[in-house]
């Protein structure tokens, strides 16, 4: 009997075994990939982005003026640091779905900055971000302000919103 004849059952089992190993590995890779926000949702015709059964859009992204210290004096950040404020409009009937979100700003070098930089905003009042939850339950439309600290050499180009449980989808709203 030839070698192939003697080992035919082993050879037949080899294919499914390999397929099983590849499938298990692929599941792990897929799980890791799906946890990352990598697929930006498109805007609709009115400029709204849809995620987590809510609509959102970037209203403004500009230098944060009007921050004050606890004593009521104008707040001045450290030299070469610029505080930016993004205002996001939301339309969410059930804001609990979008409540567990992370908002960040992206600069012209692709770097991302989280909200509420504690050290850069230390000593200021009124620079606390609201995230995605609404404060007034009587309306589904609301706007939240988010605060970021960037080097003065950096230009913010977009605001990102990642909602826990909806990755790999996320919202990327370019600055107009």
């Amino acid at each position: 009997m030839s070698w192939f004849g003697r080992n035919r059952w082993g050879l037949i089992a080899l294919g499914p075994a390999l397929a099983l190993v590849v499938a298990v590995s692929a599941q792990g890779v897929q799980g890791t990939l799906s946890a990352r926000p990598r697929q930006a949702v498109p805007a609709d015709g009115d400029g709204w982005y849809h995620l987590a059964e809510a609509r959102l859009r970037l209203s403004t992204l500009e230098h944060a003026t009007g921050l004050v210290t606890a004593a009521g004096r104008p707040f001045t950040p450290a030299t070469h640091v610029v505080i930016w404020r993004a205002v996001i409009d939301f339309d969410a009937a059930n804001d609990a779905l979008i409540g567990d979100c992370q908002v960040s700003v992206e600069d012209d070098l692709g770097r991302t900055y989280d909200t509420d930089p504690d050290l850069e905003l230390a000593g200021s009042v009124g620079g606390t971000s609201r995230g995605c939850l609404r404060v007034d339950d009587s309306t589904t439309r609301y706007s939240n302000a988010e605060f970021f600290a960037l080097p003065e050499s950096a230009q913010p180009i977009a605001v990102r919103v990642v909602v826990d449980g909806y990755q790999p989808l996320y919202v990327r709203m370019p600055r107009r």
Partner: protein
Amino acid sequence: MTRLKLIGGIAAVLVTLLVGQALLRTAPSADDDSATFLVGGRSFRPVVVGGLAVTVLGIRGASLVRRPDGQILDTGGVWVIVDVELTATQQTTAVRYLALADRDGNTYRVSQRWHQAITEGVPDLQPGLPVDGEVAFEVPRDAATQLSLRAGEHWSVAVGLRSRAVTDIALPVERSEVDRWVADRDPAVLVPPAVVL
């Protein structure tokens, strides 16, 4: 001929087992697989681990430390105070593992005897905005001359889930310096973190 085949078969099995044993002995263990990835460096030069750049700017020591609330902390060892500059390179991050290691493999985590302004998880670091400040460690006097700074982005290093990049920056300290630190009874006050650009 049959006896020859039998001996050959036994020899083949034995050789296979020996080769297998040799491979098992040279293969990395589970500990090796998850070992911390140390990134060596020297003071005054940034050492990059993941998305974090760490630069040691100075070392001093003391026998007493004064907390921000005025309370003075003594030690049976010595306080080693490291001036570090921390920078996020790509996205907001933080130092989530911060320790000194001696040559015997002992590690001394950043002191938790009070809430330091720079500690594991604090402060948040924004890309391109370096933060400079001092952080204190409580170590045995005999170990103070053989320390290196271990800093990384991942807290899991502290609980054994390692497989992460951590700095290994040697801190040059002489025995005479440690003796001087111990003899000095003037409490040290740590420089708080500040953004330096």
